């Protein structure tokens, strides 16, 4: 694993960021929604439609970070730009598949909002929850609002018993070892204050879903105020991808890494 880039803020600095940003003006917030895509020709259009539907009175921009999809995702995004405006939908593509963490960093560079939302492009994350994220953040002035599938009001559809068992077992193990302070560690539907995301992401080096875990655990360690909102997760790809032995090994390795280095 390579060295983390950039400066790592201390816990005290993290608390200062929390406090300073209460002094911001109420109601003058802009939300940058970063959506990494790869072969999501249909889904990206659906997501854009749903975001516009559910965020009517909110100032936001959608940043699509496409990794050179061969299925025409970028062409669709350009059509959407004609429909909704190039100031609302930003296409910031990359040449090839370069990984999720770097996709967020790339999107962050082009984000002009004071808040950043990250979400998946495959419609497992439904934009109808965006207002509840925003509301929770405004009520509590949290630095991070993370969606959780595992509490009442949330839920998962499309998982069989085995998948639920591994999910639950993995979660309990992570809770026992890491004391993360959130109920859903691997979730990737989150709202961050922009400065907080920049700080946390610069100190994360993992890949895949361990990256999502690392982000939230590092944020907890740095003392950032984290709130949760229930979300529902409709998994439409589960049937096609199995959770195999190698993924379990990767997960355990990730847990040990986080145990020792955070």
């Amino acid at each position: 694993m390579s060295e983390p880039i950039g400066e790592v803020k201390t816990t005290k600095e993290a608390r200062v960021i929390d406090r300073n940003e209460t002094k911001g003006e109420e109601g003058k917030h802009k939300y940058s929604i970063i959506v990494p895509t790869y072969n999501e020709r249909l889904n990206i259009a659906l997501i854009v439609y749903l975001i516009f539907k559910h965020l009517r009175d909110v100032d936001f921009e959608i940043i699509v970070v496409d990794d050179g999809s061969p299925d025409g995702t970028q062409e669709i995004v350009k059509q959407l730009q004609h429909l909704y405006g190039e100031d609302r939908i930003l296409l910031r593509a990359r040449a090839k598949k370069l990984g999720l963490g770097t996709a967020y960093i790339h999107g962050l560079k082009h984000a002009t909002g004071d808040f950043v939302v990250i979400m998946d492009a495959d419609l497992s994350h439904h934009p109808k929850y965006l207002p509840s994220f925003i509301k929770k953040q405004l009520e509590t002035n949290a630095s991070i609002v993370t969606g959780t599938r595992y509490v009442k009001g949330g839920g998962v559809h499309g998982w069989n018993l085995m998948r639920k068992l591994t999910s639950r077992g993995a979660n309990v193990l992570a809770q026992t070892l890491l004391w993360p302070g959130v109920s859903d560690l691997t979730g990737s539907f989150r709202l961050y204050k922009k400065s907080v995301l920049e700080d946390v992401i610069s100190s994360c080096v993992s890949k895949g879903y361990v990256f999502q875990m690392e982000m939230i655990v590092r944020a907890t360690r740095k003392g950032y105020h984290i709130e949760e909102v229930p979300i529902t997760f409709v998994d439409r790809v589960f049937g096609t991808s199995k959770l195999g032995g190698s993924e379990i090994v990767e997960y355990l390795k990730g847990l040990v890494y986080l145990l020792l280095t955070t």
Partner: protein
Amino acid sequence: MKHIVKILSLLVAISAFWIGLLQAAIVPRSYTWLLPIYFVVSLGCYDLLMVGIGLMQFPTCPQEAVLLQQDIAEAKDFFKHKGVDVGSD
């Protein structure tokens, strides 16, 4: 401080307590020797219990799949009228 340091300090504190118990012999030594095993086993049982409870209470949302299909149909319809070719999945 790092999390691992916190955990190790906790383990050291528990071990010190255990050694203290051994030396003071308030509780018969034969029991005290087995305490660490009891501790690990209880922790394991607790975790298994949490997995079981979590599994039983696992929140599901079958109605969300239906709602999602409705949203998808609505969006496809919208784009058809606007002339955006979204093709099919």
